[in-house]
């Protein structure tokens, strides 16, 4: 299990144990983490699973592809830490990962 911490815009923090291979959108839905919708079911089509990744973790993630990069343009508060949760797959190297769920998304 890989520990991922989701922090809401009001500071509420939730630790979730994620099975290897599961993406952060599915993990959030399974564990009722608010702020992640995942309307398209995780096929990188809707940009409703936007997260901001804690700065120290950004370089440890697989780089985003063209689709994710484009879809993030649909989010209101994109910055250099923005990723789509459905595109971050839990691996042992990500144990301890911290992500922030944006205020506007619920």
């Amino acid at each position, binding site marked *: 299990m890989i520990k991922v911490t989701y922090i809401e815009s009001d500071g509420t923090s939730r630790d979730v144990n994620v099975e290897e291979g599961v993406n952060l959108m599915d993990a959030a*839905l399974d564990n*009722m983490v608010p702020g992640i919708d995942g*309307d398209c*079911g995780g096929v*990188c*089509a809707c940009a409703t699973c936007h997260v901001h990744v804690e700065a120290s973790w950004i370089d440890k993630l697989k780089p985003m592809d063209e*689709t994710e*990069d484009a879809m993030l*343009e649909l989010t209101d508060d994109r910055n250099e830490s923005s990723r789509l949760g459905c595109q971050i797959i839990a691996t042992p190297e990500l144990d301890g990962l911290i992500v922030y769920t944006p205020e506007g998304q619920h």
Partner: protein
Amino acid sequence: MTTETVVIVGGGQAGAQSAVSLRQEGFTGRIVLIGDEPVLPYQRPPLSKTYLAGELAKERLFIKPAAFYDKVNIEHMLGQAVNAIDSSRQQISLKGGQNLSYDHLILATGGRVRPLSCPGASHSGVHYLRTLADVEAMQGKFTAGARLVVIGGGYVGLETAAVAVKHGLKVTLLVARPTPLGRVTSPEVGKFFEDVHREAGVTLCCNTEVKAIEDDVDNGRALAVVTDSGYRVLADMVVVGIGLLPNVELAAAAGIACDDGIVVDEYGRTSIDNIYAAGDCANHPNPIYQRRMRLESVQNAVDQSKAVAATICGKDKPYAQVPWFWSDQYDLKLQTAGINSGYDQAVVRGDIASRSFAVFYLRKGRLLAVDAINRPAEFVVARNILSKGLSVSAERLQDESIPAKALPDEHTEEPVKKEGLSQQQVA
């Protein structure tokens, strides 16, 4: 703390979203979600894509885990059909005889597959693809070497053909129109998908209607699909995807206005007080296109349900979104933003042969829609142009030296909402 009860009829994407959004908007009363399928709400798009391909576990289909409903106190009654609405008593009756009172009633009744009507259509080898049970009924037959005839060249037919041919089935796709996707896209994009499927090994016949389904008398359980040109295509299995019929009968019987769907306003309100509709079943006004439409999509189900939930909670959040759709076939992701009907100009950006291009549709120089094939940036910029009412010229759209993000014309951010993209008449 309210003691009101919201009853939601329909356990699909719109039903689930309505329930979830009611809680998100702060509704504290009772929520009862009634679904006629025996399972919790699930996503339908993967049924003809990754789930059919066996690449997605069943538990991943569910919109929310079972524990979610308990946690936020959403009651669900599954495998239950609603018999009638008595709007004067604010009550519904279930087929099983039980009555339920409501303060607000949301009709998220969705649609059912349009049935094939030719002789032999009820043959046990003829399948449809709308529900989890439909897919499960196909499993076991969906094996390499089997002969599959797909009837219908819409999203469901094309996606099914793509999955099947990848699995080694021998696939024949029969399309009634001159090109696939004829109802929703342009001949250019339809022709592209026709070529893609042919290259992948699908035998594809356009302008072809099915006249009958017969037993193949020489060959046990096999079928023969007879076309209007007299061909007999042998099949071990037939999948029909010829469209959806909105489930309006319950509403119509209760005296609610229906016209290609349950007629609602921008808040999802029907013609009868305290009754709302959302999703595939709802015919609603779209302020961007300034006309009524009924959409069959996840986006529509989600966004319209949010508007209904907000309205019930006394908030003013009318439904006013750019429609969008997607389809996955082979290595291709088709993303559509907007509705192209009534276009007078199609502008191709990129090289169709490269399998990465976008077709923008304009009417009198104003963008109506885009079909983006492996071009997410063009999809995104079109959604932004349409939702913000920006303008963009055909010349810029086809100029690939301008990055997609920079496509909207500069200094033209005056909203066009008032004028909208109104069309006198739409096919």
